């Protein structure tokens, strides 16, 4: 009975209400759709905002560049920061899927081949050669060649010249009567000694980055590969069948048990935190570690650390393995190509590079000879500068061919399994070689 009453009195109201709601909803949907499809994605007109994709470790640099560029040119810059292990996916996804969210892309140099082939980067050769301000020859040669070249053409400009040094904690080494090692055998002995004596106190001889991301486990392996090889590493397809490769893999496995717990879970962020808190004797790391180590707000080891070139393997010599390393490129779908290029030129210029490498927290390292040899840099971080100049003559690059992303991932997978114990070093290298041949 109640229901019938409700029905008879309520019908007209409800129908009108429903119609009104439906109309409102449609209007709302249409309105937002219109607004959104106009607003997001590439702009065809309107205010000029440069959209820049930046990797998280260079977030400091990105923000500084944003401020500087806006100040000097008035063009607005929008920075998107992405974790280092996702940036390659992001950049390639953006380019290959046509989403075109960015005008300027910070890319990991190993993907230069893949990005160029996928038409995700503009060919900048003509522009770079013509524009004298860029001063191509000032870039450190091995870095420039590795970071920007594909099939003889230039696809970007170096932004952050990364390589590894061996950092050590002065006190821990001195307390244990150990000197910074010059060979990997010495390294192993030193690490064992320190760890055995100190691990009850939570102090370890070294920390090894074994996290599966390429920057971590890949760097750890490549550091050894570069310094065990007597001849330069082929940047299209490194030789994994050589004795140097096997020695490199083995030295990882040998040292791993004596390093801080669970290398396979340690990435750069954890390793850095451990080292800066004074718990680690030695660490292979990027050159800006030197600036962090001196920053009292993050570091407990200010003035208590040193850096030397990486140890060498038997038959090899010390080298500057190009681990990580970033360049800036222009997206072919950027609506304003000139503005994007101008930003790239600005960000990689002598002035900016020098400024960024002498700013704590920027995450940027020298890409230009002028920066490397400048007094400002040398006085900012003398230890690192000295070590760098020693090794950059023997810089070794990772693969940069279009297959490089796949090659690197399969190498990392096998290395991770090796580190964890399911593969022997020989098996890991063989499996990777097989996978590479199939590509």
């Amino acid at each position, binding site marked *: 009975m109640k229901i019938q009453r409700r029905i008879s009195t309520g019908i007209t109201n409800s129908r009108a209400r429903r119609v009104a709601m439906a109309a409102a909803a449609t209007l709302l949907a249409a309105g937002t759709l219109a607004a959104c499809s106009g607003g997001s994605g590439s702009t065809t007109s309107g205010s000029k905002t440069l959209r820049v994709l930046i990797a998280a470790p260079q977030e400091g640099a990105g923000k500084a560049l944003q401020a500087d560029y806006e100040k000097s040119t008035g063009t607005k810059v929008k920075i998107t920061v992405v974790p280092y292990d996702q940036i390659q996916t992001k950049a390639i996804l953006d380019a290959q899927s046509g989403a075109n969210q960015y005008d300027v892309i910070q890319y990991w140099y190993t993907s230069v081949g893949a990005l160029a082939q996928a038409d995700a980067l503009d060919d900048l050769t003509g522009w770079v050669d013509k524009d004298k301000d860029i001063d191509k020859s000032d870039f450190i040669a091995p870095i420039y060649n590795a970071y920007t070249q594909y099939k003889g053409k230039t696809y970007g400009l170096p932004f952050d010249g990364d390589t590894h040094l061996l950092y050590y904690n002065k006190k821990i080494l001195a307390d244990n009567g150990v000197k910074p090692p010059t060979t990997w055998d010495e390294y192993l002995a030193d690490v064992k000694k320190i760890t055995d004596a100190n691990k009850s106190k939570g102090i370890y001889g070294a920390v090894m980055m074994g996290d599966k991301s390429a920057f971590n486990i890949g760097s750890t392996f490549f550091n050894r590969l570069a310094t065990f090889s007597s001849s330069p590493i082929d940047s299209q397809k490194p030789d994994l069948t050589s004795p140097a490769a096997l020695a490199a893999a083995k030295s990882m496995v040998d040292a791993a048990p004596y390093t801080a717990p669970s290398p396979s879970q340690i990435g750069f962020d954890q390793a850095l935190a451990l080292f800066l808190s004074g718990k680690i004797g030695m660490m292979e790391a990027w050159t800006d570690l030197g600036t962090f180590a001196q920053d009292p707000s993050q570091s407990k080891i200010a003035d208590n650390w040193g850096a030397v070139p990486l140890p060498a393997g038997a038959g090899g010599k010390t080298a500057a393995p190009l681990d990580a390393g970033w360049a800036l490129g222009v997206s072919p779908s950027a609506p304003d190509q000139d503005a994007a290029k101008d930003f790239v030129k600005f960000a990689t210029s002598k002035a900016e590079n020098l400024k960024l490498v002498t700013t704590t927290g920027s995450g940027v390292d020298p890409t230009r000879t002028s920066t490397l040899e400048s007094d400002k840099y040398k006085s900012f971080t003398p230890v690192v500068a000295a070590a760098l100049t020693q090794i950059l003559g023997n810089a070794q690059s990772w693969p940069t061919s279009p297959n490089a*992303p796949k090659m690197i991932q399969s190498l990392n997978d096998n290395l991770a399994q090796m580190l964890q114990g399911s593969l022997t070093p020989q098996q890991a290298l063989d499996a990777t070689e097989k996978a590479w041949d199939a590509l």
Partner: protein
Amino acid sequence: MTTAAPVPASADGPRRHRLIGWALIAPALAAVAIIAAYPLVYTVLVSFSKSTLGRPFQSWVGWGQIVTAFTDGGQLASILRSLEFAVPAAVLSVVIGLVIALSLDTATRGGRVVRVIMLLPLMTPPVMAGVIWKLMFAPTGGLFNDVLAGAGLVTEPVLFLGASPAAMICLIVVDIWQWTPFCVLLIFAALQSMPREVYEAAQVDGAGVWRTFRSVTFPLVLPSLVTVLMLKVIVSFKVFDLVFVMTSGGPGLDTNVASFNVYRTALQQFDLGAAGAQTIAFIVLVTIVVLPIATWRSRLLKAGSRA
């Protein structure tokens, strides 16, 4: 379950109603088409082709990729890992859920409080659950290791997520943490809706606790248990967030379950064709596992309604 009878036809006849019916259900069908049918068709097509993320359908490769997905050691392994994760996680959740549901007594205030507490893991986004447990499992500074070391039980940090099979076990634990409350709530409701008379009869017969459970409770609650099991298995096969946050498939590849493997192939290697093939293999696996459970369930439900 009441069955629905069609609304009595008006003078327009059932045809008008049927048209309206289809109109009402059309948006839902469209939704299913967009989020399920279209992706499925796309996946099938792409797995027959060589495709990268930016250049799909470059060329036709026939069955090659699909065969690889079913036969390649690595791919098979990831599918088995999904199985290895989903089945124990589901079964344990249901069993533990049953135990807790049986112990729950909403009459007391404690019981009600516990029911509310149990909502919390369900509400927690899996990403955050992963973050929390990753912190607890961490080798340095993690809660468990700190407690173990502090109590003097271990001298070296225990590797929870950094060793196998511990890593997979830990993932299962987190999944159980997150989903057991779901099972508890559903099973509890089922328990509450069971007929009293059977129990009273059993009691009069002098049956003890265990006997009552085995012969009376369990058979009655079994249909609901199987329903919950089916739901839970489906949910567990979908796991992605936990792996992404906690292990990235590691250590090595030990927690590289099928869903994560597809992600890696598609978005880190950009090989869309292979990813499509792997997806098909994965769907086949899920169907193979879920279908028997679903059949079992309908059989139980039919038997139950006949009784």
